[in-house]
């Protein structure tokens, strides 16, 4: 019961009486309604955010990819022996054909694989990625192109000779000795290529 003599002696009891309030009967239902409404609103906000963020991220990805696509990347030496073709060299007016690019990819892959397998044969340890990162180690390992892959190298040399792709001096020197039109290609087995660098021409 509320204390009629509410005074300085008993403030806590008076406060307890004053705070003895009960929620109104509809309090729980109203609270539930507000909670449900809040959940709905948050769900909608999430959906809208996704509708904006996902396309924006996709656009950003495309922009970044376009800015760093392979044709814009500076030519990279496959080994420390290779020399990069100077940028000042005038671009050839003829664009590389699909076959040229395929040949270039094929020859590059052959070189990388054979280096790694050669290093493994010599007892070097590490993953292929680690081998690729060891530029100094690459420099010491001669590149071996197996007979079965010669066609790709021949096509690359042919493309280089016609000016559709440019290749670095070591392979260029080697390719210069090859008659691209000669069939079949006469080459020792295994064919030893000291180093290779390839620069695809910009479209």
């Amino acid at each position, binding site marked *: 019961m509320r204390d009629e003599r509410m005074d*300085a002696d008993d403030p806590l009891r008076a*406060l307890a009486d004053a705070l003895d309030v009960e929620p109104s009967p509809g309090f729980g239902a109203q609270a539930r309604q507000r*909670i449900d409404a809040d959940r709905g609103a948050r769900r909608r906000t999430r959906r809208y955010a996704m509708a904006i963020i996902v396309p924006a991220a996709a656009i950003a990805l495309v922009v970044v990819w376009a800015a760093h696509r392979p044709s814009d990347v500076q030519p990279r030496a496959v080994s420390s022996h290779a020399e990069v073709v100077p940028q000042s060299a005038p671009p050839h007016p003829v664009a590389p054909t699909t076959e040229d690019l395929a040949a270039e990819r094929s020859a590059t892959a052959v070189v990388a694989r054979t280096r790694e397998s050669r290093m493994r044969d010599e007892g070097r340890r590490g993953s292929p990625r680690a081998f690729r990162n060891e530029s100094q180690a690459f420099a010491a390992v001669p590149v071996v192109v197996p007979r079965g892959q010669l066609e790709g190298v021949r096509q690359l040399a042919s493309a280089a000779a016609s000016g559709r792709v440019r290749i670095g001096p070591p392979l260029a020197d080697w390719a210069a000795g090859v008659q691209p039109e000669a069939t079949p290609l006469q080459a020792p087995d295994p064919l030893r290529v000291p180093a290779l660098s390839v620069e695809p021409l910009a479209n």
Partner: protein
Amino acid sequence: MNAIVRPWPAGRVVSAEDRVRDLDDRLAESSALAVRVAFSVLRNHADAEDVAQEAFVRASRRLGALRDRDRFRAWLVRLTWRMAIDWQRSGRRRGTREDAVARLAPQHGNAEVDVAARERAARLWQAIDALPERLRLVLVLAAIDGHTTREVAALAGVAEGTVKSRLFEARRRLQEQLR
């Protein structure tokens, strides 16, 4: 009472129905506490209910992290207290604070007695408002539902000894002001 809400067992898959039931349990269990805490600041029943409901809305967002009943109640009390103070400062009060004075000074029909009672009630609230927040929260929690010092300590998130000293200090200041 304590058994109404228990933590979900680890690894249990909680269905939407479980969540709804759990929220309803907590609403039933802690509504009065939240409304009273808000009322102690706002002194208006409608405003207090508004703030308490808003506190439940926020609490519902963190229901998963506040599975423990005592932690939930403590968190709800502090959130409601904070929100009520913000509400009061923001000037969003809809009604006057007369509710609280009227609760302490009911009408008896004798005008002179009624006026004196209302004055005393107004003085008490004034004295409570003049207390620092840390003392006021402890005092209010101790006044609600006859909470023990241990319960107040758990709700306010302070040590039991701190509650005792704050209660002592709050009472002393109130008595001084109401003398």
